[in-house]
């Protein structure tokens, strides 16, 4: 029943997204629920101020090897989503590289705390998720959304998250969904601990950058929205070297006036 409801919801969202894609102006930010999004953003900023920022500051005080080990273990876990998406995107080279990394780092690297795979020539590559795969398949981003606690996303990325939570994420399957025929050692709490730890690790790595952005921004909501959407575009294009920001088109309009 749960799956049927999710599928129907996903179909509705896709339909909504396609309609929005057709009617929106090219290059314009599609912030269909801006008022609600701004309210949720204000709520998230409040939560950040009283919960996430202080925790992240505390986390930053931990010795560097502990933070590096935590970051490595979380990165290792993220391969469970990245590998199927590498395959769905037809990037079999990255799928093989990430599978080797997962195998080596989970065993020799003690649950991913260390990264011996790098020394064996399996370098860290970009993370992938179902939202990115939908983007690669040509699905438009749809409207921009801000979710409580989880933060910025788009309709497409929300569908990607729903796919992950409905069988697409092996880590979610063996913890929350209790697929015990393969692994019995993990509990639901392990999943939520890993999600919170990922959030804290990310926040701690960006403490100064976010403070600077907050100080120098005249509309912080719009700044975060712009950065999120640019980042997703960059990740979908897998453009680590050259990005859309390198196009002259936008600047040429200035030249021609």
């Amino acid at each position, binding site marked *: 029943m749960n799956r049927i409801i999710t599928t129907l919801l996903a179909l509705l969202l896709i339909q909504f997204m396609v309609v929005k894609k057709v009617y929106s102006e090219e290059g314009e930010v599609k912030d269909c629920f*801006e008022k609600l999004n701004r309210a949720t953003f204000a709520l998230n900023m409040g939560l950040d101020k009283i919960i996430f920022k202080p925790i992240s500051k505390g986390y930053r005080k931990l010795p560097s090897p502990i933070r590096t080990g935590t970051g490595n273990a979380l990165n290792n876990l993220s391969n469970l989503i990245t590998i199927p998406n590498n395959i769905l995107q037809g990037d079999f080279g990255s799928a093989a590289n990430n599978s080797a990394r997962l195998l080596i780092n989970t065993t020799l690297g003690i649950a991913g705390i260390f990264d011996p795979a790098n020394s064996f020539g399996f370098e860290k590559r970009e993370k992938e998720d179902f939202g990115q795969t939908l983007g690669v398949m040509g699905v438009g981003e749809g409207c921009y959304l801000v979710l409580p606690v989880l933060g910025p996303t788009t309709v497409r990325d929300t569908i990607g998250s729903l796919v992950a939570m409905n069988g697409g994420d092996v880590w979610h399957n063996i913890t929350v969904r209790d697929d015990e025929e393969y692994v019995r050692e993990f509990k639901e709490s392990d999943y939520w601990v890993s999600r919170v730890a990922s959030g804290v690790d990310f926040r701690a*790595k960006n403490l100064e950058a976010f403070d*600077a952005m907050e100080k120098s921004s*005249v509309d912080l909501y*719009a*700044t975060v929205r*712009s950065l999120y959407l640019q980042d997703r575009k960059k990740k979908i294009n897998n453009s680590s070297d050259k990005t859309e920001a*390198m196009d002259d088109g936008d600047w040429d309009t*200035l*030249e021609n006036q």
Partner: protein
Amino acid sequence: MRILKNIVVSILILFFLISNSWSKSASEFIISLSAEASNILSGKLSEDEKIVRLKEIGKKSVDIDGVGLYTLGKYRKTLNDSQKEQYKELFENYFLKSFSSRLVGYTDAKIAVLSEEIKNEKYTIVFSKLIGTSERPEVKIDWRVYTKDPENPLIRDLVIEGLSLARTQKEEFNSILANNDGNIEVLFKNLNKFLEN
């Protein structure tokens, strides 16, 4: 026939030398600029003195007027001459304050220039990285250098890990304008409020 061949070869050599001199000047420009900023940031000056020096660097090395006009996007055409002048002045003050306050916290900033790409006679992209420390990961920074006047290259954009600061600024200003029926006075009010704080 041989004369024609010599002319073609000479033109090619000349073109190579000119494009090489552009590329060299853009990279050297970023190297010397980042070294200057790094010296200021790691020096023993007070924070206020550092901000003054950083503003001087920003003023001489960034095409502030160009970036300001770019950030207005489609609203650029709606401004009259007096509004343009007012915006120009406000944007310069806003940019310099924002730029210097963002940078002043980085006391150990070291930039390594990696390579560059000459896009055309107007733009060269210089690829670099901010060297990582135990507190901060390595950060990729690409500089859009405006080389229309090769003797006086100017920065038009900084692309940090693929995210364009100019585009972000443009979307920020455009959001304010879009939510206020394109009324430029509201943007002026916001910029003035920022400058007063």
